[in-house]
């Protein structure tokens, strides 16, 4: 390759540098590119995008992947002496010859050239020339634009002052002037109102709206429309829809069977928040940390559902922690992409390749979200995952308050009676009546006793209650009867269990006690002793159990483990290889205090891990599981243990009764004592024993308490729950996870934020609330910019920063950086006022321009980045459907509530075993945002038009154009039905012209033009003639969808009109917002 000296050019342009680079030769093509470069090369605009995209992968912020010790993202690193090459430098500012980088990028020797051939990355000649010039000019680094705090820019002066409606126009016009482009005139009123209505409310203007605006000649006619639409609740709906993409809102869990769970109350709160125009900073605070505010209101807690909307997994075999850690990561990523406009998720497995976010930074952010007492595997019966909050109606709330008070009263009454009755008890002890108790009899309320005598597994009190050995998927199992504690016992293999069928059905309001004798082999450290569950985690431990856990005992009552449960673990280990007797007693209070474990008659001290049981512990399934001994489905049993003497009581045994069943001889020795020989503890036990067994008033009080508790518990069952954030009392420890692997712990980290964005001030709480405040701090360079950019994108189709999700080094630079800053500062200073921001944007002249374009302008600015014309964009899938529903008058404008099921082709949900049952009546016609969103099979009417599946945060939709979209608009029953209704309504008009003009305006928002009218009249005539002669062809047009026409005589005409309406619906005038 021939090389020319770069010298002549340098001499001309940069005399001062001639000595440093006069010997370097550039390849021809690079030289040519060099000569075409502008005078000034800007680091942020031109250089960093190249360095980031082509060099940072090996020479960027990712410490672990740095090659040759060289990092180019910071000047001090880039200018440093090269590792292992004394006196050599990658970049020597102003000295091309001494800059190894220059030689490397110009070389075509595969051994030397950069980027390396294996990277498949290449520098263009233009890029090489830019880098050469930049180094030649002194290799000036500048801070990444997005990480500097926005400063209020001066308003540029513009020549076309009459085109300035507000400061937005100054920035836009200034750029147009430098580009020698002219702005478009204002859009036609009808077109503008349609654009405005869709942008602000997602709905088309009504005929009346159009008429009012067209006839309003006052100077503020347009502003009136803006104000009207901003005040409409439909504005809030449209804002909420945007937020549904960001917050990955969906109606199903997402993974595997992908079942429904109702989170619509959160969505409705979002609508309400936008309706009330709560400041955006507060909007973020509530969602990230409403639960951590002082005396949080229900709404503030409800807002935190935001953090729980990520997909959750119900698959039976999954490893809990693997998915739990995924959920935490998802929350972290949403903050990154949604609020900071950064791809922080890239730093989950390694330091970010392009942006100054280390893996440590990532897990510091992650730690804010890691303190939720949740599970990775959620219940297969679709119980609401925990932690969650009850959402009673006002009426339910009142009732619950009343019942709770009642229970409290009854409880106090019982306690009071117990106290007063203890006088009698004292007498009873004093006169030594306890000596009449018999040690061999059982305490009262014994309902089952399984003692394996003669190898029987049945309840010896009622032999018709049969026990059976069972094992996962293997129905026929034989018991292994061995020598027991007294007589025979049952030896367990760890996989099979003794199922006592319907014995042991207890609700959480019922008191009960279960006792068992067992002998555990030395090596066994874990395994369930007895339980009333279906499986283990598959149903989140619903029911109760007593289990061996690392040699200790764990007692659990659960609605949904881990948060809606009582879990306590003994502080001491159990003896092995010897017979022991265990009793679990429970008083029906739903409190850990009421759940006790006894070992050989002694109550064990326990650590309470969770004490938060607030829903019932039974399954609402046709076959309620009963008490099972020794193992469980998909769980670990107590293989090698022998059990005996299983006793079930329908009351909470007192301490002495536990002694009575566990150590008869000890009980005997107590009751044999004379009153003055009794220890204080024995005295107390006897006292309790008396009250519990012989006091009629106490019995009565207990019965009443039990009765009110039952009402309390049962009435809670129907109250819906919603997932929310709740901080664990003791935060979970967070570690850097190597390669992002859930079980590969590295260094421990603490809550913090990336310094490169903004150091976390000491003054803020080191929790989510602090994080939320950090996000919206005035010094945070990103949050406001990212928000205004997203709203700008919603309205103009493209963001000022096109990569709405990425403001980092790999993102695109803003087209109008100063406008972005102006908007961001204006947004903050307005008190993060979302409505105000929208008003400013739509009041600009820029927004109000016509969108028509010329070939010349298209050639210059195909993507409309300069905004010499107004925005035009295909309506979203939601808007398209809203449009025809509104135009036909079918639209049901109800706001909020559970998602609905409009028409959908049959069988789509079958791929994961579900059935879609269409709604009936006006639910078919709700706004599109209320259509049920199933992540694994999104509704095709919307999904075909690029609605994201909402498994992740999404802030920018794709914009595609496919034949499937044409098929939806032509043949989806929603569209056929709307066409028919529109066609039917045309019958009211005396003449075809008026009818066609009317339907055209309804669908497209504008008056029909003569040529269009002529064309459509012809179409209608043609179709009418056809349908008249071939009536059978009307079939589909008349009978698709629920709505039926009453006037059967006009079949042919209605069908022809329907085709006409459908044609308009499929036309650009309807599909595109202009």
């Amino acid at each position, binding site marked *: 390759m021939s090389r020319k000296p770069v010298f002549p050019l340098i001499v001309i342009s940069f005399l001062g540098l001639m000595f440093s680079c006069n010997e370097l030769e550039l390849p021809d093509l690079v030289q040519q590119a060099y000569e075409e470069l502008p005078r000034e090369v800007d680091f942020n605009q031109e250089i960093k995008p190249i360095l980031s995209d082509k060099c940072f992968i090996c020479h960027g912020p990712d410490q672990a992947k740095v090659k040759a010790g060289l990092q180019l993202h910071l000047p001090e690193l880039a200018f440093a002496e090269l590792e292992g090459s004394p006196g050599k430098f990658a970049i020597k500012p102003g000295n091309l010859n001494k800059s190894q980088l220059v030689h490397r990028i110009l070389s075509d020797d595969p051994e030397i050239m950069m980027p390396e051939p294996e990277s*498949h990355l290449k520098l263009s000649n233009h890029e090489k020339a830019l880098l050469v010039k930049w180094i030649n000019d002194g290799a000036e680094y500048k801070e990444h634009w997005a990480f500097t705090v926005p400063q209020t820019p001066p308003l540029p002066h513009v020549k076309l002052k009459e085109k300035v409606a507000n400061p937005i126009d100054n920035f836009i016009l200034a750029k147009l002037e430098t580009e020698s482009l002219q702005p478009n005139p204002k859009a036609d009123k009808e077109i503008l109102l349609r654009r405005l209505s869709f942008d602000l409310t997602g709905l088309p203007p009504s005929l009346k709206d159009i008429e009012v605006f067209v006839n309003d000649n006052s100077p503020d006619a347009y502003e009136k429309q803006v104000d009207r639409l901003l005040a409409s609740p439909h504005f809030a709906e449209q804002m909420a829809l945007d937020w549904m993409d960001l917050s990955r809102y969906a109606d199903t869990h*997402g*993974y595997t069977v992908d079942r429904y769970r109702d989170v619509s109350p959160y969505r409705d709160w979002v609508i309400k928040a936008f309706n009330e125009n709560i400041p955006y900073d507060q909007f973020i605070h509530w969602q990230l940390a409403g639960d951590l505010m002082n005396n949080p209101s229900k709404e503030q807690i409800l807002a935190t559902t935001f953090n729980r909307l990520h*997909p959750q997994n119900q*698959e039976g*075999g*999954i490893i*809990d922690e693997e998915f739990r850690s*995924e959920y935490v990561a998802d929350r972290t990523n949403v903050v990154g992409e949604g609020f900071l406009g950064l791809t922080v998720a*890239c730093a989950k497995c390694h330091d970010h390749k392009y942006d100054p976010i280390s893996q440590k930074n990532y897990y510091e952010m992650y730690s804010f979200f890691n303190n939720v007492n949740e599970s990775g595997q959620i219940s297969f019966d679709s119980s609401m995952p925990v932690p969650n909050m009850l959402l009673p109606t006002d009426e339910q709330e009142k009732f619950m308050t009343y019942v709770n008070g009642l229970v409290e009263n009854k409880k106090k009454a019982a306690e009071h009676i117990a106290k007063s009755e203890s006088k009698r008890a004292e007498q009873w002890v004093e006169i030594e009546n306890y000596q009449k108790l018999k040690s061999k009899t059982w305490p009262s309320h014994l309902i089952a006793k399984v003692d394996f005598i003669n190898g029987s597994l049945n309840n010896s009190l009622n032999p018709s209650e049969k026990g059976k050995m069972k*094992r*996962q*998927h*293997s129905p026929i199992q034989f018991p292994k009867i061995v020598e027991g504690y007294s007589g025979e016992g049952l030896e367990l293999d*760890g*996989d099979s269990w003794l199922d006592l069928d319907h014995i042991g059905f207890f609700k959480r309001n019922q008191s009960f006690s279960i006792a068992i004798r067992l002998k555990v082999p030395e090596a066994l450290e874990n395994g369930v002793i007895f339980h009333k569950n279906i499986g*283990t*985690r598959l149903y989140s431990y619903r029911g109760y159990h007593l289990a061996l856990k690392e040699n200790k005992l764990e007692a659990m009552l659960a609605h949904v483990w881990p948060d809606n449960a009582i879990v306590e673990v003994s502080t001491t280990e159990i003896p092995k290889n010897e017979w022991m007797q265990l009793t679990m007693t429970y008083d029906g209070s739903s409190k850990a205090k009421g759940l006790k474990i006894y070992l050989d008659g002694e109550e064990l001290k326990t650590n309470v891990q969770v004490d938060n049981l607030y829903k019932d512990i039974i399954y609402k399934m046709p076959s309620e599981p009963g008490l099972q001994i020794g193992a469980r489905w*998909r769980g*670990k049993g107590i293989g090698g243990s022998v059990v005996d003497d299983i006793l079930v009581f329908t009351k909470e045994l007192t301490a002495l009764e536990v002694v009575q069943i566990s150590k008869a001889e000890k009980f005997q020795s107590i009751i044999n004592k004379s009153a003055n020989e009794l220890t204080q503890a024995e005295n107390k036990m006897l006292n309790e024993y008396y009250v519990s067994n012989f006091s009629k008033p106490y019995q009565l009080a207990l019965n009443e308490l039990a009765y009110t508790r039952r009402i309390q518990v049962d009435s809670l069952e129907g109250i819906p729950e919603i997932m929310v954030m709740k901080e664990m009392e003791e935060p979970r420890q967070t570690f850097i996870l190597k390669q992002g692997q859930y079980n590969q712990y590295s260094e421990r980290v603490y809550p913090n934020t990336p310094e490169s964005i903004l150091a976390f001030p000491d003054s803020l709480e080191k929790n989510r609330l602090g994080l939320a405040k950090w996000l919206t701090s005035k010094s945070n360079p990103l949050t406001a910019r990212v928000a205004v950019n997203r709203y700008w994108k919603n309205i103009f189709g493209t963001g000022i920063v096109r990569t709405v*999700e*990425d403001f*980092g*080094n*790999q993102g695109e630079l803003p087209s109008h950086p100063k406008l972005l800053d102006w908007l961001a500062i204006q947004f903050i200073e307005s008190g993060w006022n979302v409505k105000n921001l929208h008003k400013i944007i739509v009041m600009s002249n820029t927004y109000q321009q016509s*969108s028509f*374009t*010329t070939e010349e302008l298209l050639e210059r600015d195909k*993507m409309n980045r300069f905004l010499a014309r107004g925005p*035009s964009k*295909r309506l979203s899938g939601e808007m398209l459907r809203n449009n025809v529903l509104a135009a036909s008058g079918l639209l049901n404008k109800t706001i909020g509530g559970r998602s609905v099921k409009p028409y959908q*082709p049959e*069988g789509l949900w079958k791929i*994961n075993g579900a059935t879609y049952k269409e709604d009936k009546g006006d639910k078919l016609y709700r706004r599109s945002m209320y259509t049920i969103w199933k992540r*694994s*099979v999104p509704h095709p009417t919307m999904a075909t038009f690029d609605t994201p*599946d909402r*498994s992740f945060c999404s802030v920018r939709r794709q*914009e*595609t154009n*496919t*034949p499937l*979209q044409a*098929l939806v608009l*032509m*043949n989806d029953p929603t569209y056929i039905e709307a066409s028919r209704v529109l066609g039917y309504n045309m019958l009211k008009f005396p003449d075809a012209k008026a009818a066609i003009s009317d339907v055209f305006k309804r669908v497209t928002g504008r008056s029909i033009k003569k040529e*269009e009218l002529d*064309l*459509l009249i012809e*179409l209608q005539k043609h179709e009418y003639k*056809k349908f008249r002669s071939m009536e*059978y*062809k009307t079939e*589909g*047009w008349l009978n*698709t969808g629920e709505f039926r026409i009453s006037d059967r005589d006009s079949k042919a005409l209605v069908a022809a009109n329907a085709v006409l309406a*459908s044609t*308009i619906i*499929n036309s*650009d005038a309807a599909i595109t917002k202009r």
Partner: protein
Amino acid sequence: MCQKHENLKSNNKDLQEIEKKLDRRNFLTQTSLGLGAIALGSLLKAEKTFATSYTEAIGWPDNDSLLKSYNKNRLGLPHHVPKAKRVVYLFQSGGPSQLDMWDYKPKLKGMFGQDLPDSVRQGQRLTAMSAEQSNFPMAPSIFNFKQYGKSGAWASELLPHTAEMVDDLCIVKSMQTDQINHDPAITFMQTGNQLPGRPSIGSWLSYGFGSDNENLPTFITLITKNMGGQPLYSRLWGNGFLPTEHQGIQFRSGKDPVLYLSNPENYDGHDRKKMLHYLGQLNSLQYDTYGDPEINARMAQYEMAFRMQTSVPEVTDMSDEPDYIFDMYGEDSREPGTYAANCMMARKLLEKGVRFVQLYHQGWDQHIGCPGGLKRQNQLTDQANAALIRDLKQRGMLEDTLVIWGGEFGRTVYSQGELTQTNYGRDHHPKAFTMWMAGAGVKPGHIHGQTDDFGYNVIKDPVHVHDFHATLLHLCGVDHERLTFKHQGRRYRLTDVHGKVVKGILS
């Protein structure tokens, strides 16, 4: 399938010309908007000519020098001479048991019921379904194995038909995945990542190559009807972050093979054509005002939709297939939506130039009753698998069609639940499983990789999912490291940052 206009920007001179034409306002007025669509037709024809020029002309040369004389497309594809023009992937969802079908382990017979040695398991993680079992009794297959064909490959009695074809198969016994549960594992197998969000294999190929048929989608999905079993999700054939037009289009049995394909009842193609004629004129009036090329691009999609309305029912109508073909695929093939019928349809779609056909057959999750379950599954699939290979072969298509068979993972050697002489269950096993391929560019009658005596660990030539993806792309003429898409600032590829082409299976 066509794309958003912006995306059509091409480096190819011919295409650039057509693009300019598309942009011109006279596009619509010069075009008959019935079936004709001259400009669109010529655009697609150009793409077709262009797309097939290298494939037709190269005649599968074995040196790369020939490749250089052909135009590469806008993405620089193919990177090398492709062996596979098209792919059919027979996905067996649930995880078929390699131990009962392909991976013969005679030594296990003597170890019936013995606990799986820790030295074999090596602390490998188990699913939450069997991890807590008190023992892991080894379950030798109850099925008889025999050697078949010249290659002498072992196959069990479950596979009487496919076994006859072993000399055409390249059996990979050393597949490995990272995932141990269905949802992450199937997502991993189909998209290269265990979490939702990435493009599927077929959508990468669609993105890379576009379509060879102007009337049908590039990437089509067929699912055996009424199977139940482990769920499927549309993300498995989804486009992830690639443009939507690259998603797999599910063809369903029944009236509407493609969603909303059918016009309102009794409103036929002629009627629709007329309506589109008017629609075209209406749009051209709109174009006069706004000059927006999107109007033309959208009308082009209506043309494509219209053509699909004819071509899809045609291609899905199997009535003119001769009886001997039905007989070859088995009785089931006469009933639309069965696995056999789908295999037959796959062949037809491939014949019509569809690049990637992805079948799914659910029901391979034999946690319990493994022998019985496998019998049933193989009765539904074995004959059709063999027939598909035969059928492609007899049409001369096997040499440039890649057939892939396999699930998301294998099954454990130990019994999940109770082991008896006649029955056992098997849990998920990610560390070793069997897949087979046939046709374009893979060695016929070849066995790749080997597992230990327990079928538990790979002891020779492991093939990781990423390697499988790399190889699949390689066979299609794609260097897996170079087919990338920039999304959120990063270049993504099917193989993430991994994957090696498995040279040992290439013919």
